[in-house]
């Protein structure tokens, strides 16, 4: 070792801050979860108050759990381990503090705006645009702080944990920005720039990869540092790290459309979503194997160290969830599971089993070291483990029963398949009530365990004193830079690029392009395999050089995560509308309906009601003709939904009369006995906000929704006319509501659902029909 020997003191203060924040927000997020789970059982818990209803609190639960709880946990783990793996103090104390306080401020802003009903109407992307910008900026602060630290590192080579951190930072930035592109209509409201099927695709490209790159890759990185540390054993296989890392970051991005199986999303995208999810199984299990097999020779630690228990159980749940994921992505399985509790169970297997257990392991390991003391109570940590484990099992098992039960009941037919066996949706809800109650119990047990952790860590902190880690390092000259030529013109990259390019050309090319590409694909794959057998060593050297050059490494990660998005999203957002729309095209909402739709979004109706009828007999019988792509093409944001706690609403328009809707929204039990829907009495008394209506319609026009040119007066006149008509019709049924109330707008929107479309023949097809000559 050459170079000057210096002692560096790590910035562990920021790690302590993130750790405490994560424990706090974890408790908040889980508490919200238990509360909304209870609301599903006891509708009275919605308290008839707008800011306490399920539709507004569920986004609070998901956002708090993902971004506040796991976010802060990730930052604690990344900042702590990166300093040690790079042998460098975090680049900037200022940026670190800005990152911390900026992130907490964002969380507080979210916790205030979500219950107030400010929402973009897209799952896990509900926050309004000013907060979106803050998130993007703070993420950039994080990225600068991280990469700057890498640039100043005293350890040339990047450890596998760092690879995962790099992938996280790059990909989350890309996903977040694209899915949050919006045009503001005012300070607190905006419409996303994508509409209908495009919005659905972009949303789930983001939504699925939030799971991948926010909840999975950073935690895998954390696993790769803290698990070997905790069990004091070498990592099982470096080779497996390399292979599963690259497969994971490349394949994950493609899997998003599995959230849209059997919808109006074009078939080829659905198939890609399903197939890449299947191919994701082995790469995911690579991470699990490297975690579990690292314990070989150290399994005894499972008995003595609570954090090892949490890590092992966490990695096992990761393996379970990443097996269940591909299973649920198979189209025929998804036909049953989609829109049901099965998905909810799957998600919580991952979030409680993997994320929260890894977080607990991390905190139990970190706290004594950050405060230079011993864990206050190992017994309490063990008890936390068993409570948590039992809680997860109750939760997941009840959802495994509830999801398939409801799915089967909803698709069951009777009398030779001519009618539905359970025509009343509420019957299927009643059937799963015991399961929903068991879920509350499981969640409450898990939450109790988390409170024990909070107490245990608090007592640990009290018994110790904050200390910052330090390390003696030799400052070395930086590694020779790896040029672009060396990065790209080498066997591993060229073969990978060849396989991807020819693979895509085979899949999407026509006729001879496809055949030729298939041949080339086989040739490249075989020669890559042979070449690896012959000169694998030189590939290894190339990779090790890459590990000493963070910039080329980051570039390759960026390319790997970029490909899937480009292939899936670009064709759908750039082609002409005629080529996307099949046989129906949406008619734009009237001003009144648009206001009603924004109320629908504000109340979070999409959390429980889908607007997408799948092409299955039972769905067509229950809800009407299956949904066509063109019917929602102008929906900014799309409202296809992902869960049916209540029935689908795609064609609810005209199914009931206005009076029914008033009664139902005022008190759902009055028309649907046994319903667990919250009551919305304020819709009858509150005036609809229409000050920004002209601005909203202007933005819709900019987004390509074919509204005619209208003056503000014309907009308001149309609004009033339709509102008075509905209020008049209600009067005829002895219901007296002022036309300016919110419920009038919402009824206008609901009564239009499924009716706002006209037949559509693409211009190209029309031309072809005209010129076609009958022989």
């Amino acid at each position, binding site marked *: 070792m050459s170079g000057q020997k210096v002692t560096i003191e790590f910035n562990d203060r920021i790690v302590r801050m993130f750790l405490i924040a994560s424990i706090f927000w974890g408790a908040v997020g889980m508490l919200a979860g238990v509360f909304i789970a209870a609301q599903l059982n006891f509708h009275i818990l919605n308290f008839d108050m707008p800011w306490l209803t399920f539709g507004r609190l569920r986004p609070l639960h998901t956002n708090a759990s993902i971004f506040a709880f796991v976010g802060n946990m990730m930052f604690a783990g990344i900042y702590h381990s990166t300093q*040690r*793996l790079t*042998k460098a103090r975090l680049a900037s104390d200022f940026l670190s503090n800005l990152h911390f306080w900026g992130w907490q401020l964002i969380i507080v802003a979210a916790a205030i705006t979500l219950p107030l009903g400010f929402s973009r109407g897209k799952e896990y992307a509900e926050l309004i645009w000013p907060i979106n910008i803050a998130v993007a900026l703070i993420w950039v602060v994080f990225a600068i702080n991280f990469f700057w630290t890498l640039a100043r590192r005293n*350890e040339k*080579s990047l*450890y*596998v944990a760092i690879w995962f951190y790099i992938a996280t930072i790059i990909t989350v930035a890309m996903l977040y920005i694209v899915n949050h592109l919006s045009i503001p209509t005012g300070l607190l409201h905006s419409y996303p720039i994508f509409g209908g099927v495009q919005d659905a695709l972009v949303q789930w490209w983001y939504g699925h990869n939030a799971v991948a790159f926010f909840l999975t890759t950073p935690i895998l990185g954390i696993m790769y*540092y803290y698990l*070997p*540390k905790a069990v004091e*054993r*070498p*990592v*099982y*296989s*470096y*080779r*497996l*790290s390399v*292979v599963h890392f690259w497969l994971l970051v490349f394949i994950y991005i493609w899997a998003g459309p599995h959230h849209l199986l059997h919808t109006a999303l074009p*078939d*080829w995208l659905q*198939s890609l979503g399903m*197939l890449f999810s*299947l*191919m994701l*199984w*082995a*790469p995911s*299990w*690579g991470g699990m*194997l490297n975690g579990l097999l690292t314990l*070989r*020779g150290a399994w005894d630690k499972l008995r003595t160290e609570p954090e090892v228990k949490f890590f092992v159980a966490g990695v096992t749940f990761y393996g379970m969830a990443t097996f269940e994921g591909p299973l649920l992505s198979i189209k025929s399985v998804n036909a049953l599971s989609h829109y049901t509790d099965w998905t909810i169970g799957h998600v919580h297997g991952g979030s409680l089993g993997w994320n929260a257990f890894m977080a607990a392991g991390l905190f139990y390991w970190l706290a004594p070291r950050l405060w230079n003391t011993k864990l206050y109570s190992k017994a309490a940590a063990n008890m936390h483990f068993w409570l948590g484990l039992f809680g997860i099992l109750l939760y997941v098992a009840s959802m495994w029963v509830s999801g398939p039960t409801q799915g089967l009941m909803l698709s069951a037919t*009777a*009398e*030779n*398949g*001519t*009618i539905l066996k359970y*025509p009343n949706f509420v019957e299927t809800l009643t059937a799963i009530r015991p399961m929903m109650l068991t879920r509350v119990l499981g969640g409450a047990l898990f939450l109790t365990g988390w409170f024990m952790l909070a107490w245990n860590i608090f007592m640990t902190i009290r018994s110790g004193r904050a200390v910052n880690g330090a390390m003696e390092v030799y400052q070395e000259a930086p590694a020779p830079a790896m040029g672009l030529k060396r990065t790209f013109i080498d066997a591993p990259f060229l073969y990978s690029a060849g396989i991807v390019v020819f693979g895509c050309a085979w*899949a999407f090319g026509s006729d001879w392009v496809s055949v030729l590409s298939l041949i080339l694909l086989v040739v490249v794959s075989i020669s890559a395999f042979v070449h690896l057998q012959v000169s694998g060593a030189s590939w290894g050297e190339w990779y090790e050089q890459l590990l000493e050059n963070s910039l080329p490494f980051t570039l390759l990660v960026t390319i790997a995560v970029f490909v899937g998005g480009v292939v899936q999203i670009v064709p759908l957002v750039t082609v002409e509308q005629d080529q996307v729309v099949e046989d129906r095209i949406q008619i734009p909402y009237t001003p009144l309906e648009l206001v009603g739709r924004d109320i629908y979004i504000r109340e979070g109706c999409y959390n429980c009601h889908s607007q997408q009828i799948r*092409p*299955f*007999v039972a769905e*067509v*019988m229950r809800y009407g003709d*299956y949904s066509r792509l063109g019917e929602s093409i102008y929906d900014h944001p799309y409202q296809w939904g992902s869960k049916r706690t209540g029935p689908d609403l795609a064609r609810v328009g*005209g199914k*009931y*009369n*206005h*009076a029914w809707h008033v*009664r139902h929204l005022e008190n759902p039990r*009055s*028309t*649907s*006995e046994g319903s667990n829907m919250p009551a919305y009495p304020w819709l009858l008394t509150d005036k609809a906000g229409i000050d920004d209506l002209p601005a909203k319609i202007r933005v819709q026009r900019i987004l390509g929704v074919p509204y005619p040119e209208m003056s503000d007066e014309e907009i308001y006149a149309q609004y009033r006319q339709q509102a008075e008509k509905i209020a008049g019709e209600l009067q005829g*049924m*002895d219901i007296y509501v002022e036309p300016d109330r919110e419920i009038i707008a919402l009824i206008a929107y609901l009564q239009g659902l499924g009716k706002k479309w006209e037949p559509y023949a693409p211009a190209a097809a029309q031309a072809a029909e005209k010129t076609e000559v009958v022989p």
Partner: protein
Amino acid sequence: MANPSENNPSGIPVRPHTYDGIQEYDNRLPNWWLFTLYITIAFSIVYWFYYHISGVGATDEEKLAVALQQVEEARKASAVGDLDDAKLWAMSRDDAVVAAGREVFETNCVACHLASLRGKEESPAAIGPSLVDSEWIHGGNPMDIRNTVSNGVLEKGMPAWGTVLGDQKVAEVVAYILSHHDAPAGN
């Protein structure tokens, strides 16, 4: 870490480089893991070829059309024999049919027409009209009532129950309603 290579069952030594004390073995990729990967890739290629290149695989919409066709045939095959006013009146005097009809009514109709069948007459808050008075908005002949139940009157908020309940149950529920009325002479 004290000489961990001794503990590695496969005898593979650790890699020379350590990261903050963390060492790494370089074990081979497990074969079963590789097979899992290869099988999923091979399946994907075959699946894609079957559905998207060869054109053999049926789409969801094609499958649905076939299934709906079968439902239509089953519906025709099991159609309740021809009904007319007289038969419906006769059913309305049959206790078994009326009991079955009451069950259907109480599950599906009471939300709007109330358990008393009196609807708005009993409570202005009710959505549906009374079914026991002498006034019929959409026709009071048994076959008219059946038609109203079966096809609904969407603009008035009466849903179409025919596809939901099936012809048998529609007939039963009509019989139940008629059982609250006096049959005309001759029936």
